[in-house]
C-alpha cells in the first residue's frame, strides 16, 4: 500500500522534472539501474586512462605532453566524480572496484581497443570524447540529482578533450605523408568502435524502456548516434580524412545515412573477447593490489595520530 503511494509520488516527481536526491524514496529497480549505469560510467573513465595514457611518455613535444597528461588526469577526475555520485546510492567504491575486477561490472567497450600510434591520441580525443559529449550533454538532464550534477561538471571539461584530439588530427593531416597515413589509419580504427559506444538499436536494448520512463535516459541510442555521425563526418571531411564507410551519403535533410554496425563485433567485445579486455582489467587490478599497502599505511598512520590526540 505504502509502496504504491510512494511509486506514484516518485513518478510524479520524474514527470515534473524534479530531481531525485539520495535520501528520497525510489523503486529498488531504479536504484539498481543507476548503480549499474553510474558505476560503469565511472569504470569507463578510469579504464580509458590506459589507452590514452599509452603515449604520455612518447609525446613528441612539450605542449603535446602536458596537454595529454592534463587530459588523462581529467578522465581520472571524471571517474572520481562518478564513483562519488554512485556512492550516494549506498554502495562503497571498494565494492564497485571489486565488481569490476570480478567481471560483474562492465565499462565502455571502446576502451578494449589498443592505441598503437600517436594518431590514436587524436582519434580517441576527437571521436571517443566526441561521442561521449553527445551522450553526456543528454545526461545532464537525467533524473537523479548527483548524476545530473556530475554530468554538468564533466561536460564543461569534456570539450577541451575533443578539441585536443581534433587538433592532433588536423596537425597530422597538414604534415608529412607518414603523418597523414598515421591519421587516416587511426581514424579507421576508431570510427566504428565510437559508433558502437551508443549501444545497440533501442529495440535490442533490454533496459531501455524503464530508463526512458524514469528519465535516466533522455534520448534513444539511435538518435544520439545519428547526432554524433552528423557532426563528425563534416569535421572529418574538412581536414581531408576519408570516412571508412563505402555507403555513406548526405541526405536532403542534412543528415548522413551510413552502413549498419557490425553487431557481431559489438557483442563479441562486450562478452569479453575484444583485443584488450584482459589487459585492461589486469592493469587496473595490479594497480589496485599494489596500492593496498599504501592505503593501509595511510589508514594506520591516521589512526595513530588520532589516538595520540585523544590521549594527549
Amino acid at each position, binding site marked *: 500500500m505504502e509502496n504504491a503511494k510512494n511509486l506514484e509520488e516518485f513518478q510524479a516527481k520524474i514527470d515534473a522534472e524534479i530531481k531525485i536526491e539520495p535520501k528520497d524514496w525510489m523503486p529498488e529497480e531504479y536504484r539498481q539501474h543507476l548503480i549499474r549505469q553510474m558505476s560503469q560510467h565511472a569504470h569507463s573513465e578510469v579504464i580509458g*586512462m590506459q589507452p590514452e595514457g599509452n603515449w604520455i611518455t612518447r609525446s613528441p613535444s612539450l605542449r603535446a605532453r602536458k596537454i595529454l597528461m592534463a587530459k588523462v588526469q581529467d578522465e*581520472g577526475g571524471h571517474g572520481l566524480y562518478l564513483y562519488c555520485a554512485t556512492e550516494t546510492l549506498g554502495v562503497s567504491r571498494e565494492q564497485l572496484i571489486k565488481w569490476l575486477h570480478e567481471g560483474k561490472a562492465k565499462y565502455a567497450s571502446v576502451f578494449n581497443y589498443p592505441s598503437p600510434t600517436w594518431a590514436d591520441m587524436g582519434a580517441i580525443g576527437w571521436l571517443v570524447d566526441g561521442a561521449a559529449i553527445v551522450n553526456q550533454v543528454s545526461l545532464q538532464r537525467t533524473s537523479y540529482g548527483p548524476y545530473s550534477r556530475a554530468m554538468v561538471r564533466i561536460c564543461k571539461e569534456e570539450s577541451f578533450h575533443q578539441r585536443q584530439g581534433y587538433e592532433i588530427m588536423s596537425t597530422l593531416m597538414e604534415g608529412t605523408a607518414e603523418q597523414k597515413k598515421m591519421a587516416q589509419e587511426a581514424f579507421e580504427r576508431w570510427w566504428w568502435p565510437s559508433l558502437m559506444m551508443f549501444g545497440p538499436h533501442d529495440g535490442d536494448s533490454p533496459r531501455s524502456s524503464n530508463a526512458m520512463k524514469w528519465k535516466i535516459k533522455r534520448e534513444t541510442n539511435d538518435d544520439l548516434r545519428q547526432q554524433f555521425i552528423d557532426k563528425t563526418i563534416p569535421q572529418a571531411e574538412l581536414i581531408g580524412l576519408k570516412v571508412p564507410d563505402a555507403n555513406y551519403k548526405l541526405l536532403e535533410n542534412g543528415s548522413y545515412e551510413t552502413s549498419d554496425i557490425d553487431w557481431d563485433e559489438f557483442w563479441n567485445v562486450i562478452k569479453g573477447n575484444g583485443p584488450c579486455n584482459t589487459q585492461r582489467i589486469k592493469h587496473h587490478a595490479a594497480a589496485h593490489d599494489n596500492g593496498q*599497502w599504501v592505503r593501509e599505511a595511510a589508514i594506520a598512520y591516521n589512526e595513530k595520530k588520532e589516538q595520540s590526540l585523544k590521549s594527549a
Partner: protein
Amino acid sequence: MESNLYKFCLRLADTSFILSYRLGEYVSHGPFLEEDLSITNVGLDLIGQAESLFKYAAEIKGGGTTDDDIAYKREESEYLNFHLVEYPNEDFAFITVRQFFMDVYNYHLFTGLMNSSDPTIAAVAAKSIKEVNYHLKRSRKWMLRLGDGTEVSHNKMQYAVNELWKYTDELFDMDDVHKSLVEEGVAIDLKEVQEKWIKDVEDALTEATVAKPDHVKHSLVYGKNGGHTDFMGYILTELQYLTNRYPDATW
C-alpha cells in the same frame, strides 16, 4: 663552446623534465584514484618549470632553436639532469622518497634563486616556489604516512631511503661552471642549500621513524656533466621515439 648560463639552465630544466617523465609513466598506476590525479599535477607543474627554462636556454643558444629542439633533440651526454630523477618508479615508496628529496632541494634552491642577478632565472624561481611549497607539503606528509604507517610500509620506506641516498650528494656538488655563476650572482652557494636540506630531511626521517643511512657516494660521472645511469638510455628511447623516427615532422 656552451656558456655556463646555458649549462645551468639545462641542469635545472633537464632535472625537472626527467622527473616529470617518471611521474607521467605512473599515470593510471596510482594506489588510489585521488593520488593518481595528485601525482599527475606535480608532473604538470614540473613540465611547466622545465618549459620555461628550455625556452630560456633556446634563447641563449639562438639561431632559431626552439624549446622542443632542446628538450627532444640532444644526445644522451648532452642531458644534464641529476641521476636521482632517472631512478625508476620501483614502488610508491621510491616515488615518494625521490620526490621528497627533490622537493626539499627545490624549495631551498628556488628560495635562493629568487634573488638571482639573472631576471629570467629569478622569475622562474618565484613562480616555481609556489608550486614547490605545495609539492613539499604533499611529499613530506607521505614520508610520514609510509614511514610511520604499518610495518610493511615502514620497511619499504627504509629500503627506498637507503637505496636513493647515494644519489643525493650530486645535488650539492659545485663545479667550476657553478662556482663562476655564484660569483656573478646568478646561482647560489649549494653548501647553504645542503645544510638546510640535511636538517629538513633528518627532521622528516626522525618523525617518520626512518633511520638516516650512512653517507654513501657512488663514483659515476655526475648527470650534471652528462654522465648517466643505465636508466637514461631507456627514458630517451621512449621520449625521443617520434622525433627521432620522423625528424622532419611537426607535431
